[in-house]
Structures are given as C-alpha cells and as structure tokens.
C-alpha cells in the first residue's frame, strides 16, 4: 500500500469529526460516511496514467470521469443480485434458516436475508422477483391475510432499508401476489423499495399494466421494463422465475444478470469531455476514445482488486452458498451529459442554434457518439466479465445530486423537452437500445389521466414496439416522486430543508437534485 501525506490524513480526520457532529445525519448515515472516509485513505489500486487529471476535479471544473465514490479499496462488488429463488428453495446454512413453508416464514426469511446483502450503499439494491417468490405462499392464505402480511413486509422494508436505490421486480406474468403488491404500494405511498414491472406484449395483460399505472399515479412506481428486449440481451444462465428472465432491474433502473451483479460503475461526463475537444472530429477520433480507454482501464483495475485481492468471492456466504456466482458479474460503463456534449460540439462548429432533442443534425451526432462508445466497449476485453461476452455493459447513468449542467445519460435537458410527447419519444427511440445495463425516461403526468389510465397504457405499449427500454410515470401532484431513477418523498425533502433528520439517505440526494437538477420542473404530459 502506498503512503499518503499527513496533510491528507488530517484533512480526512477533520471531515470525520464533522460527520460525528452533524445535526442532520442519522446514526446509520454517520457510520456509512465514516467508513467512506476511512476507505479514502487507502491507496492500493494501480491507477492508469492520465486518470487523475480526468477524475480529480470538480464537475464544474472539467471533471471527465467519475467513479461515483466507490472507494479506494472496494471490499465488495457495487451491485449484488442474489438468487432469492434458490434461498426460498434451499434456505441458508450461514443464516441458519430452513426453506420457508408458508407466507409468514417466507417474508420473515427475506427480511433477514436483506440485512446480509452488501452493496455500495450498504443496503440491498435488489430485493427479489417478489411476485414469483411469494405467489406459491399467497395461495395458501386468504386474500385479506396475504394483503395484510405483504403490507407489513413493505412497511418493514421502507423503514429499515434506508436508501431508495433498492428495487423489487414483478411481471411479466400477472399473478395474485403481483396484484397484491401493486395494491399495497399504491396504498402505502412509500419511497422504498423501487418497483419495476417487466412488461411483455405476449405475457402481460392490459389489466395488469393498468393496475400498475394506477399505482404509479399514486406513488410513482412501478416503472415499466421492455421484457423481450432484456431477455434477448441476457440469454443465458439462471432465471429469476418462470418467464421472468435471467436479468433483474436493480438500484435505479439497472439491468443486471440474475445471481450476479456489477463489480463497478464509472461514468464519462461527456459534456466536459467535449469541452476539451477542438471540434466534432477531434472529439470523435481522439479525445473521447482516449478518455474511454482510461476509464475502461480504471474499471479493469477495480475489478481485478475485487476479484483477486479483496477476498469477497472466497469468503462471503452469498458466494459460498451459491446465491451469487462470480461468473455472473459484469461491470457498468456509464455516461452522462450526451445532450451537453452534442450542444457544446455544435457550438464549437458554429452551429449554436442546433440543440440535442430537437434538430436532426444534433440527434444524429448523438447517435454517432453513442456508436463510438458502443464500438469501444465491444473492442475492450475484461476477463472477469464472461457473462457479457468479456465486455462491460453500457449504462445511461442518472446523475448525482451535485451534478450541475449535466443531464442524466442521454436525456433531453429538463426545460428543453419537445413540446409534443410524440416527438420526445421519437428521440428516445434512437438511444435506449445501447444501454443493456439500464437507461430510462421519466414523465410527470397531468392529473386528468387519473380518469384515463389507458392513456399511459397506450404509451407503454407503443414505446416498447418502438424499442424503448424503460419508462417511468408519476402524477404531477404526488408526494412520492421519481428524482432521476430513485424515489423520494417531497414531504421528506421539506423536512430535510428544515434541518430535521430523515430516515432515507437518498432524501439528501433528492434535495440536491431538486436544486441542481431542476427535477421538479419536468414537462408535464
């Protein structure tokens, strides 16, 4: 391990003391922050040359690569996606739990298991394909009892998983358990867990989607994932359940292999990378490929450390008991700010009036940039990403609270959305296909749609015909709202702004995004 200066140690110690004394952080948030600061003193990774100039800057000072605070010595993969179906079938020796035999035991076992699933947030980013896991047990009790138990289970999750980067999946096949889950989340209006309905034109009924839309208009979830698209991209391995696919949606909207996960996620800040280029050709042929190469090698090194040095896969019970498999992990090659990059480059070419999301030339440049990144990734090899053909998975990252003038992934900036939703959807249809490990767009919906949820159903059905990947809707007046990918309650942001404690750490991120990302100003559809 490399030595560091005493100055840096002292600066970090000051930050640790600030955390200890904080008025607004809860105990759990303080512990997590202390761990991050302690980790920041470690220097064990062999960093690629040129990285520090691209990484160690503020976002307003030209930062080009961001590692999303994963730490200096990653002690676990970023996102872990356990095979909960195996746990239901076999129980766990480490946790001393036999397989559950009824709904009471199933819910209790899951709640125990969640406390043992690590991630970058220290909370489980994936809590299971809950309809498939619970449906066999729901059939053994009367519906009122099932409803009550599942309601308590969801309340328990919201109050103990203190971070809304936590995701449950249902669908594509309608089930009694799936229906109860939708009814319960619609009633509770809680932020945790996030929820996705896998949606397949052949398997998901209109009634089931409409039940989802009605819940979403109350509580901003579920989101809707294009199931045939994801199943084609994750063709092999172990399944989350019959017809549920070999993939999951975890954290914000991340498509990941079931029974595995993602080692790491870094992101390109495309707008700032574009600022370094003299024009479109310089960007496309030199600057962008160089930054991609440095970020990929940085990710390679992080993965090497997790797999070869951290001991995680040798020692953690999840791996030892087969709930995760090392060869079902990949890594996420993320990006933000395509819109800002396109606009910046066109301005450098003297075409200031052309805007991403509106003009053909701008949108085509966006596609060209995406093809460059896609081709780069297809050529870059990592031996520990067997599940994705030895390559990373592209990810349209949703941004972080401190981002300023950075649009998530390939989204059209808030305030510049096309007047017509049809035109907006047309732009998206060119970009969703690239992002196997997730992208998504969010639409606040006018109140009148409460009377006509079929309106949203038609948009979902149409969008998946047009190869869109993932869509989220919420009612313009809901308390629970979707920030960028995760959910936060407006009432909780208000509390935090009044300097009161709030239980979910994501509320602070939502507050940042409200001020820096203008997320309350999205165009209402």
């Amino acid at each position, binding site marked *: 391990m490399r030595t560091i200066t005493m100055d840096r140690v002292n600066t970090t110690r000051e930050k640790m003391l600030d955390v200890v004394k904080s008025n607004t952080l809860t105990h759990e948030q303080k512990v997590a922050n202390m761990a991050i600061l302690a980790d920041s003193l470690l220097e064990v990774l062999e960093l690629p040359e040129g990285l520090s100039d691209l990484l160690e800057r503020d976002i307003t000072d030209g930062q080009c690569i961001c590692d999303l605070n994963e730490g200096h010595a990653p002690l676990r993969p970023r996102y872990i996606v356990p095979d909960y179906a195996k746990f239901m079938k076999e129980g766990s020796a480490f946790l001393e739990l036999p397989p559950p035999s009824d709904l009471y035991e199933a819910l209790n076992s899951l709640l125990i298991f969640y406390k043992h699933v690590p991630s970058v947030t220290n909370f489980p980013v994936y809590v299971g394909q809950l309809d498939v896991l619970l449906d066999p047990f729901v059939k053994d009790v009367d519906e009122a009892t099932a409803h009550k138990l599942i309601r308590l289970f969801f309340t328990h999750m919201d109050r103990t998983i203190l971070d809304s980067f936590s995701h449950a999946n249902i669908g594509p096949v309608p089930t009694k358990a799936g229906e109860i889950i939708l009814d319960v989340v619609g009633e509770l209006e809680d932020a945790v867990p996030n929820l996705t309905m896998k949606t397949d034109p052949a398997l998901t009924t209109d009634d089931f989607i409409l039940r989802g839309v009605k819940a979403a208009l109350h509580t901003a979830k579920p989101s809707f994932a294009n199931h045939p698209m994801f199943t084609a991209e994750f063709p092999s391995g172990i399944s989350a359940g019959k017809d549920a696919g070999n993939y999951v949606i975890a954290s914000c909207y991340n498509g990941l292999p079931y029974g595995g996960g993602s080692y790491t996620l870094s992101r390109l800040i495309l707008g700032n990378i574009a600022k370094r280029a003299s024009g479109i050709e310089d960007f496309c042929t030199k600057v962008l490929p160089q930054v991609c190469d440095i970020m990929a090698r940085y990710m390679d090194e992080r993965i090497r450390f997790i797999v070869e040095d951290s001991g995680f896969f040798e020692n953690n019970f999840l791996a030892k008991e087969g709930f995760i498999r090392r060869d079902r992990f990949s890594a996420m090659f993320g990006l933000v700010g395509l819109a800002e990059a396109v606009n910046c480059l066109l301005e450098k070419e003297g075409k200031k009036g052309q805007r991403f999301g509106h003009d053909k030339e701008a949108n085509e440049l966006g596609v060209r940039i995406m093809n460059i990144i896609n081709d780069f990734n297809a050529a870059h090899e990592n031996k520990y990403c067997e599940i994705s053909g030895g390559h990373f998975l592209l990810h349209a990252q949703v941004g972080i609270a401190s981002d300023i003038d950075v649009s998530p992934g390939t989204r059209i900036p808030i305030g510049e959305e096309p007047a*017509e*939703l*049809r035109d907006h*959807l047309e732009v998206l249809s060119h970009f969703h296909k690239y992002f196997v490990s997730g992208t998504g767009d969010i639409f606040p919906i*006018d109140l*009148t*749609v409460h*009377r*006509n949820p*079929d*309106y949203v*159903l*038609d*948009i979902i*059905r*149409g*969008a998946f*015909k*047009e190869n869109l990947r993932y869509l989220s809707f919420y009612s313009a007046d809901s308390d629970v709202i979707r920030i960028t990918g995760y959910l936060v309650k407006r009432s909780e942001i208000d509390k935090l702004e009044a300097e009161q404690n709030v239980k979910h750490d994501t509320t602070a991120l939502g507050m940042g995004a409200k001020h820096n990302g203008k997320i309350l100003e999205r165009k209402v*559809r």
Partner: protein
Amino acid sequence: MAPVNRIIRFSSVDGPGNRTVVFLQGCNMNCRYCHNPETRALCVHCGDCVDVCPTGALSFSEGFVSYDHTKCIFCDACIKTCRHDASPRIRNLTAEETFPEIEKQLPYIRGVTVSGGECTLYPDYLTALFSLCKEAGLTTLIDTNGTLDFAAYPALLSVTDGVMLDVKSWDSSVHRSVTDTDNADVLRSLSFLAEHGKLEEVRTVVVPGLVDAKYTVRETARVIAPHLSKRPVRYKIIAFRPMGVREAFRSYETPDTALLSSLADIARAEGLSDVIIV
C-alpha cells in the same frame, strides 16, 4: 375537404386511451357557454387579424387571409382580435392530406377523435378519414352536438366506432335559450345511436340557472339505459367553468360539488354505472 382548426397529437381526455384529436372549424349551434368560441364560424376574410400577427404567419392578398402554420407561434393574438367567432388559423385539408398527420402518432395511439366546432357538418370528409383510420387499425370517435341525421349516413356509421354526444337540455325551450336551436335532432340522434350501439359517451354541461340539469340527466339516462347491453355508455357530467367563454356569458356560476354528485346519482339510479364528474 374540411377546415381543420387544430390537431392535438396525444390526448387523454377525448375518449378511451391515447388518441389524436382533429378539430374542425364551424358550428351550427350557438351555445352560451362555448369554451372555444373561435371554432364557431368560418373566416370572412376581413383582414383584421393580419395586422396583429407578430410573426407574419398571416397575410392578406386578393381579398383573402392566408395562414402559414410554419410561422405560427400560437399566441392567439388573431383569435382575440376576431369579431366573427372565427379563426384564420385554418387549413382546408382532404382526408388524404389529414391522415399522415395522424399516422405519425402510431404506434402510440389507439384511435382518433374528430371534434369541433361541429365535425358532422363534414360527413363526407369524416367517412373518408375514418376509412383510412380503420385501415390502419385505429378506432374512430365522433364528438358532436347531435344535429346530423345519422340514419341518413350508413357509410359514415359503418366506419365510426362510437359517438360522444352532448345533450345540453331535455326541454326544447331551454335548449333554444342555451343554443339558439331546437333539440329535436339531438334527441333523435340520442335514441338512434343508443339503439344502434354507437353511443360511446353522453355529456351534459351543468350551468346553474341556465340548464335544467336534473331533468336533462334523468331523461337522457332513461333513453340510454335499455340499450346498455349493446355497449357500455359513459355519462360525463361537466361543471361549467368560465375559462375561455365569451365575455358576455362569463358571469354564470360554477356548480357546487353537491349538485354535481346529485346529478351523478340520478344517472346511476337510472341504471348507468359509468358516470363521471369533470
């Protein structure tokens, strides 16, 4: 050909699901509470609006106002100036010229609604447009005041999935005071469409002091109820709101919730289950 005032590409309020709505210009009633009076009349080419257009979208030559929709910013300056309840922002389009603007919304819409003005003033256009929509697998709805004698237009009915009909007043003299027209044609359309399973929705606008809403809702519901087995029919009770209404008629009150609920109860008591208040 028909004068097209506007096309709304995605609408959540003009029938089931997501629909494209085509608004045609011109109306044969004169409802006091009309919310878009600028769709009532056809342009007389007086030229008043040309001077107030800030973008040059309107021009005047050889006695005619012409409109360039590519320059229009929809500021409504022309409509506010017009003394004839008309709009210069009209495109005279054939069904074949209109359809491509609907087709752009595929696959996101399930159907098309044509509204107005009074769209049934152009039955041949409707028949041609709906035939094209049907070929594309879209459902077709007419939003009307019910003055057309639908029995005389079997070709139109055969390509129309449903009609959304306004019943403004059951009493003929009240109807005349509200609309300047008799309601015999409207009531004939109500019965005919209900009997033939073509009624999608009926609406009554509630304006206290102007409309006999309780009587109208009860009698209308009684006509619909025996035919509900043919298809479900929604009754929409609409509260009057002054927004968009001509200055002279803005002083009517908005009905209270209790009145609206009692009207919905009347419709339900007659056997209608799908009753909504807006």
